[in-house]
């Protein structure tokens, strides 16, 4: 595949007159703002959610109760169920608002093409996995994100959406009874809500590992928007 095949390549602006510095503007302000705000709210939602889970750490019946796991207090927020509910119900709005703002920005600015996993990316996923896990040759980086990255980011957004939908059912299973039915009822919505948390935490873990492997420039680009010496620039 040549660079001209993929329209948005690279979706980043090379700083005019500084070509020899090889810097590219990868992340617009709105994306960086949402990234860090969501970092906070995702952590708050996860930690307060785990505190809520501690009140009944099981997916079985109440009688007899078989605890699935004992979440360490150090991973939780809120101190007790009521405190955790306050954090959860407050940051849920920040979490949702961030998501709405992010998606609106990405669509309106057409910047969604940078992270969105689309059909043409499918073929590139396996070569990246082979490279990362099975010592395969590194595929040429022609866009800001490689196909595997796009798949991960797109999945994370979908998981975020599902976390909200399952959460709405947990909070209000009667008014949202149609949504509840789609999820298999209140009981299953609680299972899905927890599974989505696990998947999101796995994403965060993988994300952190990749950022560490790719170094300081990768990290600072999410702070300033500018990436020095990106691989896809000539």
């Amino acid at each position, binding site marked *: 595949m040549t660079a001209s095949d993929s329209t948005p390549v690279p979706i980043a602006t090379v700083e005019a007159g500084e070509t020899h510095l090889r810097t590219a503007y990868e992340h617009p302000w709105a994306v960086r703002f949402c990234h860090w705000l969501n970092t906070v709210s995702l952590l708050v939602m996860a930690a307060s959610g785990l505190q809520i889970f501690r009140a009944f750490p099981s997916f079985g019946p109440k009688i007899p109760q078989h605890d699935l796991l004992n979440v360490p207090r150090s991973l939780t927020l809120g101190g007790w169920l009521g405190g955790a509910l306050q954090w959860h119900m407050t940051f849920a709005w920040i979490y949702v608002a961030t998501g709405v703002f992010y998606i609106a920005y990405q669509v309106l600015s057409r910047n969604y093409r940078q992270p969105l996993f689309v059909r043409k990316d499918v073929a590139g996923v396996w070569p990246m996995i082979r490279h990362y896990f099975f010592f395969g040759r590194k595929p040429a980086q022609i866009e800001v994100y490689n196909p595997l990255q796009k798949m991960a980011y797109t999945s994370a957004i979908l998981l975020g959406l599902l976390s909200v939908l399952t959460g709405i059912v947990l909070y209000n299973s*009667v008014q949202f009874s149609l949504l509840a039915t789609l999820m298999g009822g209140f009981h299953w919505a609680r299972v899905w809500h927890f599974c989505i948390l696990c998947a999101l935490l796995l994403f965060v873990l993988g994300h952190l590992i990749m950022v560490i492997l790719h170094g300081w420039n990768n990290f600072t680009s999410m702070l300033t928007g500018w990436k020095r010496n990106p691989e896809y620039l000539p």
Partner: protein
Amino acid sequence: MPGSPKSAKSRSLNRRELLKLSPLLVVGAFAIPRVRDPLLTAGVSFTDWASAKWFRRNHLAPTFADSELTPLDKFYVNTYDVDDPDVDLEKWTLIVSGDVKRPGQYTLAQIQSLPKLTQNTRHICVEGWDVIGRFGGVRIFDFLQYVGAKPDAKFLHVECADDYYESLDMASALHPQSLLCYEMYDQPLTRVHGAPLRLRVPTKIGYKQAKYLTSLRVTDVVPKPGYWEDQGYPAYYGM
């Protein structure tokens, strides 16, 4: 190229871009206890407000077949201090007060003279577990008509034999499935489940289903919405 003019320019550019993220520091308010507590209270109130806005008077809670019922002995008994507050069932009356035309003491027989509704609905505890139970009683709607409650009153406040107290917004109280419940599983309420009378509101979370009712007040103001609410739980918690 450290020290070169170009790199200095790029550093100032980076600083500028970084400063653009400074609005994020507002979130730091949640780290200051004196600011955090009112913010969290406001967050819960906003959630309550949104939930009340979303409430549809005639949207029914799902009902279930008898085969889906949780057996009564698997229906967890949750209380805040005692399982059985020793209500004298012989002498019990419900004291009705507030904005009603006919305040006074009502016997269980008087309450039971109103049309009875029996339904299998899901009871969800704020802790996360849920059971499906069979509940029988009179519609709160019917009882409030019976005592001549002011039609536009805002709240229903109840007190219990175990010193528990609760309140319902009137829209939820008047929902066609909201009951003054005196039967579970076609038997009179057992003492641990709130004999002789309890609330059963399938559009509300578990802690709002007060047991062992002793008094009921129709009012526009509730200084203390409920026992758990006063510890920090959401006051509305609609479903």
